[in-house]
């Protein structure tokens, strides 16, 4: 059985006209332990929604998400919070660093809700990402690339078993994007963490041996894509 196993996952929302719009309809998807997979998808195909469901930030309408054999769907909010803090690292598209906190403190904050603050390991991660001289800089004092690396360090701070990355290179130039992805993948490998990256950036996707098109596994996404293509202009 895969380390991450998704079965018959459905998620819909009510649009402003009152209609139910299905965003996620995934019959089956899995990820092995330590595996690194890239999911390609255009804007609006449900990339972020899928990652939020896996992370326990959102809950599905129905279906199953099993993480290491443990069912996540149906867990209470508190248990999902604990699961996220202990097992998931999340690199957000906009990094979501806290402005009033230094780079080091942002990483420590990530640890605070998991196994606990470990300044030595946090410093080690930031140093490994080339930020040893930026530990006490605030996000506003860092370049976009540096902020992205802080977000990567924070995602890895709790030694998660799965790292989710949502358009991690979306804000970077091609050189920085390649460098950032290299670091992220290298650190995930070093810490034996599985990595699921969703992106629409071809260069980011090309680095992965295992690539999937989200539209292929998400029936709702493909249907919406078809609807969009067939709709009269």
């Amino acid at each position: 059985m895969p380390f991450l196993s998704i079965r018959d996952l459905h998620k819909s929302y009510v649009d402003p006209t009152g209609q139910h719009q299905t965003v996620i309809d995934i019959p089956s998807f899995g990820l092995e332990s330590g595996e690194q997979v890239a999911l390609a998808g255009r804007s609006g195909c449900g990339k972020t929604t899928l990652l939020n469901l896996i992370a326990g930030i959102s809950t599905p309408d129905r279906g199953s998400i099993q993480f290491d054999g443990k069912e996540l769907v149906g867990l209470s909010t508190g248990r999902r919070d604990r699961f996220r803090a202990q097992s998931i690292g999340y690199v957000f598209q906009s990094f979501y660093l806290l402005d009033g906190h230094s780079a080091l403190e942002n990483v420590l904050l990530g640890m605070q809700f998991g196994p606990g603050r470990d300044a030595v390991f946090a410093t080690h991660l930031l140093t490994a990402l080339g930020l040893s001289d930026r530990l006490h800089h605030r996000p506003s004092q860092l370049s976009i690339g540096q902020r992205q690396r802080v977000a990567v360090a924070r995602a890895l701070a709790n030694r998660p078993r799965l790292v989710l990355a949502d358009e991690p290179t979306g804000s970077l130039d091609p050189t920085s994007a390649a460098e950032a992805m290299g670091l992220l993948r290298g650190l995930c490998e070093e810490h034996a963490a599985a990595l699921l990256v969703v992106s629409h950036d071809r260069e980011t996707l090309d680095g992965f041996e295992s690539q999937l098109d989200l539209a292929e596994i998400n029936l709702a996404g493909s249907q919406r894509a078809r609807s969009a293509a067939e709709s009269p202009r």
Partner: protein
Amino acid sequence: MSSFFGLWKLVLRSLRQHLLSTCVTVVSVALATGLVMGVFAVSQQSRMAFAGGPLGFNAVVGARGSQLQLVLNTVFHLETSPGNVPWSLYEELKEDKRVELALPFALGDNYAGFRIVGTTPEVFGPFEYEKGAPFTFQPGGRAFDPRRREIVIGASVAQVTGLRVGDHVNPSHGVEVNRVEDHVHDEEFVVCGILNPTHSPNDRVLWLPLEGVYRMSGHRLRGTGAEYEPKDGVAIPDEHKELSAVLLKLVGRGSGFQLATKYNRLGKEATFAWPIGAVMAQLFEKLGWMASILEIVAYLVMVVAAASILASLYNTMNERRREFAILRALGARRSTVFTVILLEAEAIALGGSLLGFGVLAGILAGAAQIVREKTGVVIDPFVLHPAYLWTPLGMMALGGLAGLLPALKAYATDVAETLSGGS
């Protein structure tokens, strides 16, 4: 599991990020708690100072009228005298076996606004202004000689006027500060002694012999009903002498009941004010409604301070929704962000309460200074009051209540929606 230390760091960081709003709120809480504690402390200490002091005498006898006015006039040297009593009453009390000491007071003059009291040398002993505390002299001073024009001055009088032993004093008529129409007596009195501070209204008094008061130019005695003007070298017949009051030290508690019955119930010419503490307590009971209003105002100020905590936190909620969503995405529980906001409210309440003790110190110092200047009564700013405990605790409770609404808003933050939802 998030540690309290980690949460506390988040709280401090957030408070620092909104420094101006935090400072203004802390100051408003400090003013509120300081005001509440100040109202209770000043009220208690004034009562203790005016009604609870261990006086060296038990009763005052004076003209028929208000006991309170008599006590204020004789003991605290405030108000005007309700009238005079005949010398014979003093003689009668002096001979009464229930009276250990009778000290005659003749009032009506002042020097630079300080009251002058005509009395006998017994005021410097065996009389005690407080239990076990007779007046003592500063070096070089002594009691007045009743046959001479000598005067003894209180410590505050000496400090304010600069009078020294050997200086000359011309009393003015009336007990208030010199006014243009007031008559300055021709008689000059020599300062023969300065009393050590007593921290009582007596520090603001000048003491001279009774004869000195009687023989002051312009004074007329009406002990018999007819006016009598004392003449130099001629003894004043006792029937012409009058007194403003007689201070009494009684023998046993039963004496007070008996004398109260004799003068207040059966007699018609004098008022027997006893016990003095109870008479003063009546004053505070009469003014109780005013203290209650002050207390209500102080409580309302506390509620306003709590509202300012609510406003200061609530106003930051919209800009902080993203911060809460990020914390939640990192694994913070709803209860954690709820606790962070509550801790912020409590931190403001605690900081304000601690600063409130500074405000209290200022209020007490100011009140003590004013009370001392106006009455000579010293209130002790270091006397503890239960309000020093329950006011900060009450403020913390109010702060917690004020933090509830913003904390609930933080609790209800939708992470996915706030972090811009699905793509």
